[in-house]
């Protein structure tokens, strides 16, 4: 049932369009009973259509873009504060060598080539301080290359 309902939600827009087209046919025929069906149809159509935009508006909420530069042996900036539940796009620029940035606890890992740019989107779902490390071995200071992510309410 849930699956069927889910699908009908996704097709809400299409169904609404069909209903409205159907309603237009009824209007042209001018029947009173048919008009009641038309109204019902439109109501259902709008109700279903109403669900679809609600979803797309949520998906369109622009995530916060944060630019980070990775260079032997530090990230710039070295600390970032983000909000719990707010989508984040980390844009990683590799300067001198291939680097990576991994937050084990957040299940986030992004790798970048020398001179390249990569990005990863995620939504932090818990508060706290998380330390991300370089995830591509880059030399003698690799182990100390880290970035602290503060996730606040």
């Amino acid at each position, binding site marked *: 049932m849930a699956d069927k309902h889910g699908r009908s939600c996704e097709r809400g827009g299409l169904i609404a369009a069909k209903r409205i087209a159907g309603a237009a046919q009824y209007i042209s025929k001018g029947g009173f009973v048919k008009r009641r069906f038309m109204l019902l149809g439109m109501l259902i159509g709008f109700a279903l259509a109403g669900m679809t935009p609600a979803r797309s508006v949520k998906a369109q909420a622009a995530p916060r873009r944060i630019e980070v530069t990775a260079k032997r042996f530090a990230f710039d900036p070295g600390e970032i504060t983000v909000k719990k539940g707010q989508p984040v796009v980390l844009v990683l620029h590799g300067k001198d060598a291939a680097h990576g940035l991994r937050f084990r606890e957040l299940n986030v890992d992004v790798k970048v080539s020398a001179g390249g740019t990569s990005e990863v989107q995620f939504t932090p779902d818990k508060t706290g301080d998380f330390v991300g*490390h370089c995830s591509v*071995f880059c*030399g003698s200071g*690799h*182990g*100390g*290359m*880290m970035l602290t992510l503060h996730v606040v309410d």
Partner: protein
Amino acid sequence: MRRIPILATAIVSLGLGGCKADPPWKVETKTVTFAKHHVFVRNKDQRNPLPSNADTWVDGKEAFSHYCVSCHGMDGQNTGVPFADHISPPIPLLTSKEVQSYTDGQLKWILDNGVSPSGMPGSKGTLSDDELWSIVVYLRHLPPSGSQGVPDMYTH
């Protein structure tokens, strides 16, 4: 005046003789192994914060492959390492009892600080804590000897 060349020869011979790297005697090995396990290598009680599972093992294998393989081979059993037997003390098999009888905390301590005066260097700063702990998991479940091939650096 004749004494000077004799003296010089003696000093040079002594110097060269002293530099010769003989394999350590049994008593020497036993004593040093005991001392390392019970005195020098600290951090006996620290637990590995990472779960011992397949994901961590893969991380450990990856981290091991950057740095450790040049002396220990991909398998931790010296496969393909040309000088493994030629240095003193020789590089131990990481599957050996001598190594495996360390606690996880002690293995981490060795990875951090190295074992002086053997050739084992410390990796603190070169590898992150996360990577070092994942290597400890890899060390506990090393693949069969020879199964991982020869490190890249020795194949060219």
